[in-house]
Structure formats: C-alpha cells, structure tokens
C-alpha cells in the first residue's frame, strides 16, 4: 500500500476486503456532501434521500472495481452525478405528477404557514432565509453541468481537475462552465450581492 494514500482510498481498500466498519465511516463522512449535490439536482427531499442511499449501495457494489489511484471523492461524486442524470432521464421519459404534490389550495395554505413561521424569526435570519431561497431558485434554473460544477467547486471544495473528472470534460471546459454559471447567478442576484446582504446576515 502506498505511504501517501488518501485516507478515504485506504478506507475503500478495507471495504474491498469486506470491512463494513470502514464503509460506515465513509457513509458518515460523505452523506452530507452527497445529499447536498443530489438534493440540489433532483429538487425533491424524499427522492434525494433514496437516490443518495443508492449512491452508497452502488459504491459498495462497485468496491471491487475501485482503483486507489483515483481519489475517492471524485469517484463517489461521479457515481452520484450519473445516478442523478439517470433519474432526470427517467423523469423526462415518464413525466408524471408526484402523488405527494400538494393541491394548489393546499400549496397556498402551506405558503401562508411558512410566512407565519418566518415572522417569528429574528430579522437577520429572515434576510438570510430569503437570500438562501433566491440563490436556491437561481441555482435550480442553471443547466445541470454548470450547477454541478459550481456546487462541487464551492461547497465540496474539489479541485478543478477533480471536477473535470466528475463532469468528464477538460479543465478549461470546467472553468468555462463555472464562469458561465456564475455569470448567470450574478445577473439574477446582482441586487442582493452588491448590497452585501450575505456578509451582514450571519
């Protein structure tokens, strides 16, 4: 085993030998980053949970094919992205309304409930909540590859080379995706970003 082996890769080598404790450790470490990516791609909490669970099951099943030369997080996010894309394709083939989708009247009612709840929040939290909502909306409207590149870059702190590997494109194409995505976000959120609301709302 190489001396400078990535700790996650070392855990994965143990998983390959059937060590479930090592696998639990990996799930604990990566459940939040995987959920962040899946949730912001699928936009449905319940389906995101199932999909994130499938990501880890897929990791376990494919453990024998894992090569420690690849960084574990890159491999994991590649699996997560592929499953998300499959889900998006499946939805486009079978466009059906979710049974859980609220009735327009119920939706209106639930919005009022949220508003009522928000009035009890301190003003700075209210501002933060509103801004978070705006940025989530703007992110959701981005093309999938731009959104994934931005999220992996900022939230999961992957290098440009690693993001390029996940997106299966060149480093320059990755930077271009991030640039275009950020330009769209800046255009939509200009008013909030210049005001420096994010800096103040802590």
């Amino acid at each position: 085993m190489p001396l400078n082996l990535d700790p996650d890769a070392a855990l994965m080598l143990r998983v390959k030998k059937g060590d479930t404790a090592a696998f639990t450790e990996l799930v604990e470490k990566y459940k939040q980053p995987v959920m962040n990516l899946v949730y912001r791609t699928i936009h449905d909490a319940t389906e995101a949970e199932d999909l994130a669970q499938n990501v880890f099951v897929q990791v376990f099943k494919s453990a024998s094919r894992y090569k420690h030369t690849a960084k574990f997080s890159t491999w994991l996010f590649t699996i997560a992205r592929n499953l998300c894309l499959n889900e998006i394709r499946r939805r486009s083939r079978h466009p059906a309304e979710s049974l859980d989708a609220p009735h327009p009247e119920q939706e209106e009612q639930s919005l009022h409930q949220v508003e009522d709840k928000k009035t009890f929040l301190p003003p700075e939290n209210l501002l933060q909540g509103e801004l978070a909502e705006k940025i989530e909306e703007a992110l959701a409207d981005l093309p999938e590859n731009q959104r994934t590149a931005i999220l992996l870059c900022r939230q999961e702190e992957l290098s440009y080379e690693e993001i390029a590997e996940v997106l299966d494109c060149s480093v320059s194409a990755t930077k271009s995706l991030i640039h275009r995505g950020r330009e769209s976000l800046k255009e939509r959120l200009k008013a909030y970003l210049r005001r420096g609301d994010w800096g103040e709302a802590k």
Partner: protein
Amino acid sequence: MKDSDYNQSKEKCWRGDLTAAEAAELQAWLAQHPGERADWETEVGLTEALGKLPAAPVPSNFTSRVMEAVEREAKAQKRPRIPVWTWLLRSLLPRAAVAAFLVLVVLGYQHQQTVARREKVVDGVKIVSGVSSLPSPEILQDFDTIRKLGATPGPDQDLIALMK
C-alpha cells in the same frame, strides 16, 4: 498585477482560496481599475452566498438505512445461483412448447393444402383422359357453315300473313 492575474484571482475566489497577500495585491490593482470593483464585489458576494447555502436535510437514520440496504445486497449476492441448465429448462421449456405447437399447426395446414392441390390435379387428369372417347374432329368441318345458318333472318311474318 496584469489583467490575466485578475482572472486567476477570480478563479481562486470561486473556491475561496485567495490568500491575504493575494487579496492585498488585488485591492491595489482594483484601486487602479475602479471600473472592475463592482464586478469584483459581486464575485466575492456570490462566493460567500454559495458558501453559506444551508445543508440539505439528511435523516438521522440515513447510515443505518444504507447499511441495511447493503446487507440485503450482500445476502442477494450470496444466494445460491440456479444452475444454467435448470434455468434453461425453467425459462425455455414453456416457450419451446409453444413454438413446437405453432410449427405443428403450420405443418398440418401445409399438408392439407398439398393434399387438396393433388386432388385437383387428379380431377383434371380424369377430365383430360375422357377426351380420347370424343368423336373425330372431322365431323366439325362444316361447323362454321352450320352455325351461320342459325344466324339467317327469321321468316317474313308479313308474307305469311298475306298468303293466309
């Protein structure tokens, strides 16, 4: 600092990797290029905003659910596999039976058609064989003349009436 360095600083800013020294150098550059300041502030604001996005909700039993699913998967992999010949028998036998039945139906139909065709041929041969007992064609030498006789105009009814 050059314009290309500004773009590099932007790329570092995207990841929140800008060091204090780089930030100071950038501020000095921005002082000389006030037109870029607004763009830079938006870049910084967006980076901060993305960094502060709330985490997606993860259920408390997520890990245990994953481990249960993995165990189920492992059990399914360990389950004894059905031998190939058993699988072939089970999956192919009903299909083979249906195929054989269809082949039999087609063959039966074809046989029936052949028999019917043969009977028709036999009937034809019987008719042709009866032709040998027909009279000689010489008796038909005046056929056309006789036929034309039948085509002559009928009796003159007015003349018959006068004669009466």
